[in-house]
């Protein structure tokens, strides 16, 4: 990572749907002030919003401390990490599916194949009500690595994008 540019955006978030777009545009505008490449800014802001959508949709918001819901975007001129953490129900089917999706993406030769595979699954199985396309899209369009882990009831998803 370059020593010339170093930034960090960190925000605790309330799990409300409208906040996702507010944060997506905030990240987009912030990155646009740092990076020349607008495509890279679009990509990182898309990653941010897809991760936040998953968190709001699949997080455990009934019996948990909402202060664990956080967005962190940090990096330098060569790479940017997006890290979203949110409380989860360790036994939920949604969490299991999400972790399986991350693993599945890694099993494909490249993210494009993982994304195409998910598109076909949605069409063939008629899974139009359940997207599950966000993580494959992040890997493909964002061209980034995705790592997921659960620690003490909090899901941490980290992506690393290279400029």
């Amino acid at each position: 990572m370059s020593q010339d540019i170093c930034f960090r955006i960190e925000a605790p978030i309330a799990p409300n749907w409208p906040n996702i777009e507010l944060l997506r545009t905030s990240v987009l505008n912030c990155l646009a002030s740092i990076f020349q490449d607008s495509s890279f800014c679009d990509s990182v802001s898309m990653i941010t919003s897809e991760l936040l959508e998953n968190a709001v949709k699949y997080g455990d918001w009934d019996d948990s401390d909402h202060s664990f819901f956080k967005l962190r975007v940090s990096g330098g001129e060569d790479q940017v990490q997006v890290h979203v953490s949110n409380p989860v129900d360790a036994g939920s089917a949604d969490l299991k599916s999400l972790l399986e999706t991350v693993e599945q993406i890694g099993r494909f030769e490249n993210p494009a194949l993982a994304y195409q595979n998910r598109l076909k699954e949605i069409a063939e199985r008629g899974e139009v009500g359940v997207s599950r396309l966000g993580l494959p899209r992040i890997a493909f369009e964002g061209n980034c690595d995705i790592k997921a882990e659960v620690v003490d009831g909090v899901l941490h998803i980290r992506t690393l994008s290279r400029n």
Partner: protein
Amino acid sequence: MKQTFTHQSLNIEISPADDGSALQMIWGGKSNARSPLQILEPVFQEAQAYAAEAKLPLEMHFQDMEHFNSSTITALIALIQQLRDSKVQLRLHYNAALKWQKMSFDALKVFETPDGMLQIFGKGEA
């Protein structure tokens, strides 16, 4: 048929093409609803019924879109399937100069078939 659909920061202008060759849906703004299919399905159904009755292709223009979420892509997949079943041709136009649009729509070419019922066009590539 001439109407404007608006939901939050998404707007879709629906009208016949000037030369009458297609029913056009011009998308603008952002599509980031939690369940886009629920919102878009009535619009899709009305446009589909009109296009089928008039025997016109449905032409969607996304060039002015700022952003859409992955659930919107899922809604488009549902539309592609529905139009194929009702024998209405679908043409998708995107801005190939925008990398995010190019990647999203190039990926949808996996649904193109030799019968041309789905055609995807990128314009303005550098």
